[in-house]
């Protein structure tokens, strides 16, 4: 029990200590403090995981949830209260492991990357807060606990994205991230209200138990209550999914994610790989039995939004020229994979393959996406630019990053035997079993993924003109060499990207807790893998050597390319809605009405009184006693009038 509490407590302590005393007293020590706390957290998480998966967790062949710690935090009614606790079950343990591991890697990497930063202690403090919030979200026993930490994740991302607060773009990006996710959280909150009103509990265990038993009166109540022709259960689950879609950057709430790269690059790694963006997937997975058993319609929404986001983001990723933006869209696309995998899944046994696949992909994705971002961080550190045009030919000056980035790209492209292959195959086969349309969309997106990832790879490390090479020869001396911390982390994660796929994931995590055999069917894999290889070859054809092939193609595509390049103009649409409609048509009139009409009414009233009293000014004798008498008379007559009226009533 105590160890699982400590996993959360250590990052929190690091946050408080570095946050209050870091700048003045700890200074560079706060990095060490944060890292040591994370290391201990990670070791504890690993021991909890070992203990759960191999010693105590499985009862009669099934993994059940246990709650080693729980306390009543805020009681609303007799039935509804927020409990803060720690839930240990397969997905929470898996997430504990992933979050602490990735966070540890980011902490270590930042020791090198953020060296010399003025607000170094603040940075580590925020990093710890972020990790703490995510851990609290993961182990939540109560849906309101999820919401509590959900909000904390939101604010920590705000703090970190806006870390370089003197940059206007960073301020704008941090605001955008917070407000867009807050908007989605409104859906989450409303969903919780609807869900809890009928369930009579905010506890996950109770909610799931009550809403998955067809004979349960709570379920019958929420399924029969309807609003606008849609059952309250569908409303609740869809609204909760909106919250999840906001945090997980699903279309059309994704607009904050590409801008979120304004934060320091290791932060992007943390946001994109292990925290924040997977929170939405995790939320759906947490309530999965309710979605799958009682409300397939809401789950269908999840599937559709997931697959649209996956394809949409992959298309945009092909046209972006900023290394972190490409990676951001790739994250959105991969999260889309996880979402629709959940969406096509059913509950229990082989039918629940999608659930397992989704969690598996979450697990492998965390490793290779963290690697991709940290490599990007090293590259940016080296060339002092995010733009692909400033890169090219870097394989010579950054051999190690070249290799690790290649491994990560192979993993995300789904080339065997790298991590992404295994999880993506499971997702594709789940989609194949349940929904052919989604399957074909997914397989096309997978091919696109390998194209844009290798476009990025070749444009960064190859694609060299002569001019570039010289420039870098010069740059090598001035630019900071990446430190041991940074390269070490890259190597560890690269090993992870190679081996993570070999984990027999279905043994540990499945929709119903029973072991699910992982099966890779060679005949099934032929098509996706060859498409992925095709994507790589295509990228190689265009971007291995500097040429104008790609430019000619993009010109040939004309307006299609321009639309993609402008990310389908979604940002512009949002800007229009917020600036033109909300500010100009709602907020400005509200302020105007208040100033001129509501207050104007009061002022007119005052003015009228003044005019009236001026006409009576002869009465102004200046004698206080007579005023008092009049005042008293006035009050008394008011009373008399009201008494008189009352008699009439």
């Amino acid at each position: 029990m105590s160890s699982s509490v400590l996993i959360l407590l250590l990052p929190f302590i690091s946050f408080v200590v570095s946050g209050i005393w870091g700048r003045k007293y700890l200074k560079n020590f706060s990095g060490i403090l944060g890292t040591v706390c994370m290391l201990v957290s990670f070791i504890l998480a690993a021991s909890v995981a070992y203990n759960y998966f191999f010693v105590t967790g499985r009862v009669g062949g099934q993994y059940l949830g246990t709650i080693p710690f729980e306390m009543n935090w805020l009681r609303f009614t007799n039935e509804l209260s927020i409990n803060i606790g720690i839930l240990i079950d397969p997905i929470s343990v898996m997430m504990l492991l992933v979050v602490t591991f990735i966070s540890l890697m980011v902490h270590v990497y930042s020791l090198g990357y953020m060296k010399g930063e003025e607000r170094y202690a603040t940075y580590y403090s925020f990093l710890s807060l972020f990790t703490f919030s995510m851990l609290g979200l993961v182990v939540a026993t109560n849906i309101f606990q999820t919401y509590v930490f959900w909000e904390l994740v939101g604010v920590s991302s705000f703090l970190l994205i806006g870390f370089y607060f003197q940059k206007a773009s960073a301020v704008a990006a941090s605001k955008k991230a917070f407000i867009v996710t807050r908007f989605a959280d409104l859906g989450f909150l409303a969903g919780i209200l609807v869900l809890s009103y009928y369930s009579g509990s905010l506890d996950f265990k109770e909610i799931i138990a009550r809403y998955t038993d067809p004979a349960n009166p709570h379920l019958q109540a929420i399924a029969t209550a309807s609003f606008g022709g849609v059952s309250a259960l569908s409303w609740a689950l869809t609204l909760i999914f909106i919250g999840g879609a906001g945090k997980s950057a699903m279309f059309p709430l994704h607009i904050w994610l590409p801008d979120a790269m304004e934060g320091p690059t290791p932060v992007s790694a943390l946001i994109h790989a292990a925290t924040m963006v997977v929170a939405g997937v995790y939320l759906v997975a947490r309530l999965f039995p309710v979605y799958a058993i009682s409300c397939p319609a809401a789950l269908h929404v999840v599937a559709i939004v997931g697959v649209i986001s996956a394809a949409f983001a992959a298309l945009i990723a092909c046209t972006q020229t900023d290394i972190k933006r490409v990676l951001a869209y790739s994250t959105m696309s991969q999260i889309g994979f996880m979402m629709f995998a959940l969406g096509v899944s059913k509950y229990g046994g082989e039918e629940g393959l999608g659930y397992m696949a989704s969690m598996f992909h979450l697990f492998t994705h965390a490793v290779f996406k963290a690697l991709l971002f940290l490599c990007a961080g090293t590259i940016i550190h080296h060339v002092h630019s995010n733009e692909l045009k400033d890169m090219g030919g870097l394989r010579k000056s950054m051999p190690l990053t070249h290799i690790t980035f290649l491994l990560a790209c192979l993993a995300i492209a789904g080339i065997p035997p790298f991590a992404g292959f295994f999880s993506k195959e499971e997702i594709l086969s789940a989609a194949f079993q349940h929904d052919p349309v989604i399957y074909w969309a997914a397989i096309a997106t997978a091919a696109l993924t390998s194209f844009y990832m290798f476009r990025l790879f070749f444009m960064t490390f190859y694609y060299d003109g002569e001019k570039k090479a010289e420039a870098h020869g010069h740059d090598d001396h001035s630019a900071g060499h990446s430190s041991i911390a940074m390269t070490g982390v890259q190597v560890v994660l690269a090993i992870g990207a190679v081996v993570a796929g070999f984990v027999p994931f279905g043994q540990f995590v499945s929709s119903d807790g029973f072991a699910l055999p992982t099966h890779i069917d060679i005949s099934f894999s032929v098509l996706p893998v060859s498409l992925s290889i095709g994507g790589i070859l295509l990228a190689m054809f265009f971007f291995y050597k500097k040429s104008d092939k790609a430019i000619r193609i993009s010109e040939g595509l004309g307006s299609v390319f321009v639309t993609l390049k402008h990310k389908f103009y979604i940002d512009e649409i949002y800007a229009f809605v917020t600036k033109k409609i909300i500010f100009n048509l709602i907020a400005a009139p509200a302020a105007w009405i208040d100033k001129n009409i509501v207050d104007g009414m009061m002022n007119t009233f005052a003015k009228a009184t003044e005019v009236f009293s001026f006409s009576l000014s002869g009465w102004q004798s200046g004698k206080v006693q007579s005023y008092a008498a009049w005042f008293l008379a006035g009050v008394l007559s008011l009373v008399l009038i009201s008494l008189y009226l009352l008699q009439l009533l």
Partner: protein
Amino acid sequence: MNLGLLLLVPLLTAAAIAFSKGKNMPRVIALGGAFVQLLLCVVLLFAYRTAHQVAPAQGMYFETSYPWFASLGINYHTGVDGISIAMMLLTACVVLAGILVSWNMEKQVKEFFFLLTILSGGAYGFFMALDLFLLFFFLEVAVIPKYLLIGIWGSGKKEYSANKLALMLMGGSALVLVGMLGLYYHSATPADGFSLTNLGKQQIPLDVQLFFFPFLFVGFGIFTALFPFHTWVPDGHSSAPTAASMFLAGISMKLGGYGCLRVAAFLMPEAAHFYSGYIVALAAIAILYGAFATMMQTDLKYMNAYSSVSHCGFVLLGIGMLTPSAISGAVIQMVSHGLMTALFFAAIGMIYERTHTRTIKELGGLLKIMPFISTVFFIAGLCSLGLPGFSGFVAEMTVFVGSWQRPEEMYRVATIVACMSIVVTAVYILRATGMSLMGTIKNKAYEELKDATWNEKVAAVVLIGAILVIGITPFYLTHLIDPGTNQIMENINRYISLN
């Protein structure tokens, strides 16, 4: 424990200030007095906890009653329950912080601290009064000094604001007085006529309730920015000196909420039920409309004042819903908003004192120059937008969940409208922090400015500490106020059944 001490201390402090000389003596006495008040409130808190354990069903504790105008049935009758104690603790914290923030006051120091101390005494008296006449008396004590505080020490169009505030609050008081007299004349015996506890035990005839409830509710409502009578708030708060703004938003607006709950809803539950739809509608309008109006403000004080309109809407919404958790949410929101808005005004005051501007656009990059003050401002903002870990979250969520327990469609719509404010609040808070704290330093002259001084730091730490205690361990506060809200609920449930 003798509650009279909490009136005696401010009175003696004020007297001592009146006879003090120089610049330093008044403020030291005021600070000492405020500190003793806080100490007394903490002692009261623990005394209450013990007393409550001994006699959990007692209702009011530490009651004292002396005849005052025996012939009219007016008594000096005081007593407290958990809700009053929470409000008194709030008062003590805000007053202490207010005095610390005004430490370097230059103009008419003696009078300033004298009035501030009198105000705090009025607030304590109001929260402990169990006699309606006494309650009204203290309500007035807590209004009149504000007129002077704004008129003399204010800024901007201070005469206009002071007049407006005094007139509108006086109007509110007049309505309250009419409502009270109505109750007085319809009580079973004239001897009970002003007694809150005795009136609570009687069922007042329905027609009397329906007629006089609006007087009391609107009268008190004006104090707590009931739409459309909220317009004194922006001008009044903005023109007031920092400590007065803190007191005004932190405590005065709570007098109204407390009165709506303790007097109007408690004594006339059937009328409260009858009018609840109107109350809820007005509250929901205030919440969202206030939030949108806040978005367009260009002055930090106006921004916070409008945001107070929006946040006090939660108090009225909770009371209007008449469910146990909504009401307890309303009480939590009173405490939370009191602390948070006082902190906000304190931070704005600190910024204004240094930069001599409150226009959001003229600031910028302050985080770099004054990290402490900026962090305080930011924390107040986070509390305002309802971030977990701060008191605002606890209050808002309790109101939301409580409100949702009313299944009628209209109440549902009002709840959703209120929920929508969490997004709008985030927009205006982040807009203000983004423009004033973050970004590049707009004015070169600001680079020389100094960060917070010791007194400002202590003030901020007191308020932030209280906000965090509620935010991180909300169960202490809910345990404190629950018996009080239950008692009010019992009275309501005796006559009406919801749903």
